[in-house]
C-alpha cells in the first residue's frame, strides 16, 4: 500500500463523512435545532474541520489534478456548512425547555458520524515528512521524491 494511496483515501473518506454530516445537520436545522447552540457549535466544528482539510490538502503531495477535484468538493461543502439555517440568536434548547429528547443532542450526534472513519490512521502531514532528492543518472537533474515513514 503506497503512501500516496493512503493520502488520497484519507481525503476521500473525510469528504464522504462531511457529506453525510452536513446533510444530517441540514435535516435537523428544519427543526428546533435551528435555534440551538448545539447546531451552531456543530456548524463551527464542520467549518473548521473543512478548513483544516483544505490546509492539509494544500500541503499534501497528491497529484494536482486530484487535488483540484478534492478542493472543489471541500469548497462546496464549506458553502453548504456556512449556509446551514440557523437563527440569529441561538441558545441551548434543552435549557430553554423546548428540547425534551433526553441528554442526547442531535447536532452533536450528527457530528459524531465522522468518528466512523478510523482509517487511514495516519494524517497526511505526518505520513510524508521529508523530501529526498532523486538525481537523474542521464541528465543529473534533481527531482524531489517523498520519503514515506
Amino acid at each position, binding site marked *: 500500500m503506497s503512501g500516496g494511496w493512503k493520502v488520497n483515501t484519507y481525503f476521500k473518506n473525510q469528504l464522504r463523512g462531511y457529506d453525510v454530516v452536513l446533510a*444530517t445537520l441540514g435535516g435537523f436545522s428544519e427543526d428546533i435545532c435551528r435555534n440551538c447552540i448545539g447546531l451552531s457549535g456543530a456548524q463551527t466544528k464542520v467549518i473548521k474541520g473543512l478548513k483544516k482539510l483544505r490546509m492539509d490538502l494544500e500541503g499534501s503531495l497528491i497529484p494536482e489534478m486530484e487535488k483540484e477535484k478534492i478542493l472543489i468538493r471541500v469548497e462546496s461543502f464549506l458553502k453548504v456548512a456556512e449556509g446551514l439555517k440557523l437563527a440569529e440568536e441561538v441558545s441551548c434548547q434543552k435549557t430553554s425547555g423546548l428540547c425534551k*429528547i433526553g441528554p442526547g443532542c442531535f447536532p452533536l450526534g450528527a457530528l459524531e458520524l465522522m468518528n466512523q472513519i478510523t482509517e487511514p490512521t495516519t494524517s497526511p502531514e505526518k505520513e510524508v515528512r521529508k523530501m529526498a532528492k532523486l538525481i537523474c543518472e542521464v541528465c543529473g537533474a534533481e527531482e524531489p521524491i517523498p520519503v514515506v515513514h
Partner: protein
Amino acid sequence: MLKVSPVADYPTEAGCFLRGNDYSPVAVVVLLNAPYGTLPPEVQSIPPEIEKLVRVAIETGAALSGTLQTENIGIEKIVCNVVGNPNIRYLILCGKEVSGHNSGTALKALIKEGINDKRTIVGSQAVTPYLFNTPLGAIKRFRGQTTLVDLTEEMNSEIIAKAVWSCYQENPTPFQGLSLCDPGAFVETGLSCRLTWKVKHPEEIESWEIDGEFLKKIKEPLEKKVGEPMKGNERIVSLTKRLLKVTEELAGIARLCIEELERPEEALREKSLEEVKPQLPIPMREEPLTEEELYFVNQLRGYRGVLAAFKALDRDICHDGCSLPAAVISASKRLKNLKVSLDKSFLPDKKKEKIQKELDEFEEALQGLPQDTSQPCQKTVGNCTIGSGCFANASLDLLKLVTEPALRSNV
C-alpha cells in the same frame, strides 16, 4: 502579619462563587461535575452536595468559594479574582473531576507547570486548556501567589472545613501531610484585571489554529504593564485616560436618551422598520401538551435527521452496498411500529392526523431509498475504506439519542 486591602473592583470577574472574609488566605474551588448542556450559564441548579461544599468553605472562613466547570474561561476567572486579593495564598481544589472538561487537572497543571507560548496549559489533560483572555502577568502572579491544596475527588464537607481552617492558622498546622499556616499577604500589590474576551469561545479553537497571527490578534496591550506598578505621572495619565473614556461613553448614552425622548415618533418608526427586517423563519412547533404527544414529536425529530443522512448516503457508494438497504428497512419497520402506536394512542384526532401525515411523508421518502440487501458489502469489495465503522448503521443510531419520554404501555 501583613494584610492588605484587595483592589477596588475586587472580585473583578463575576461567576458562581461566594465572597467571604477578604483577609482570609484561602480560596476554595469546587469542581462542578454536571452533565454538559443541562445547566444554564448562570448555573441555576448546582447539585446540593456541591453547593454545600461551597457554603461550608465560606462559613469556615474562606475569602472566596465557588465552582469551576470549564478548563479555560472558568480558570481565567479564578486567576483574575485571586490576583485581585494578595491575601489569598492557598487554593483548595476539591470535588469530583469535571468529566469531559478535566478542569481539575488543568488547574493543577497551571499551578505546577504554567502555560506555553501558545497560551496552553502545559501538561493538562483537558481538550481546550487555553488562557487567551488573561494577561500573562496575571497568570505569572497567580502561580507565584498561591499554593495548591489538592483535595480532588474529596466531597466530605468536614475535610474541606478542616483544610480551610488549617490555612488561616498562625502556627504551622499539619493537614494531610502538609504544613499549613497563614503566611500573610503576598509581597506585591493586588492586580486589577479582567478577561479581555478577545476569544469568547476558546472551546471552539483547534490547537493547529494557534499560530503567530492568532496570538498577535489576542495580544492585550495592557499585558506588558500588568505586574509592573506604574509610577508617578504614568499612573495619573492612565487613570485620566480611563476617566475620559468613561465620560465619553456616558455622554454617548446621554445623547441617545435625549434623542429618543425628543423624537419619539421617529424612533418608533425606526423600531418598526427594524421589526420588519426579513429574518429566517424559525420553525415553531406547538408545545406538546402530553407526554404521549411528546414521544411522537421526539421520534419525528429523530427521523428527520436520519432520513437526511440516508439520502446523502444514497448519493454515495452506500447506494450499491447492503448496509444502507438494511438500515432503510429497519427504519421502515420502526416507522410502521410508530404508526401502530399512534393509532392506539389517546391523542386527539387532529393531532393524530398531523403526526400521521408526517409519518407518511417519511415512509414515502424511505420507499424511494434502496432496499435490496443482496447487494455486496462495499467494504468487502474494497470500495469503502473508512475502517470498521459504517455510516448507514451510525445514521440509524441517531434515533437512539431520543431517550425520553419512554413509551407508555397503553400506547
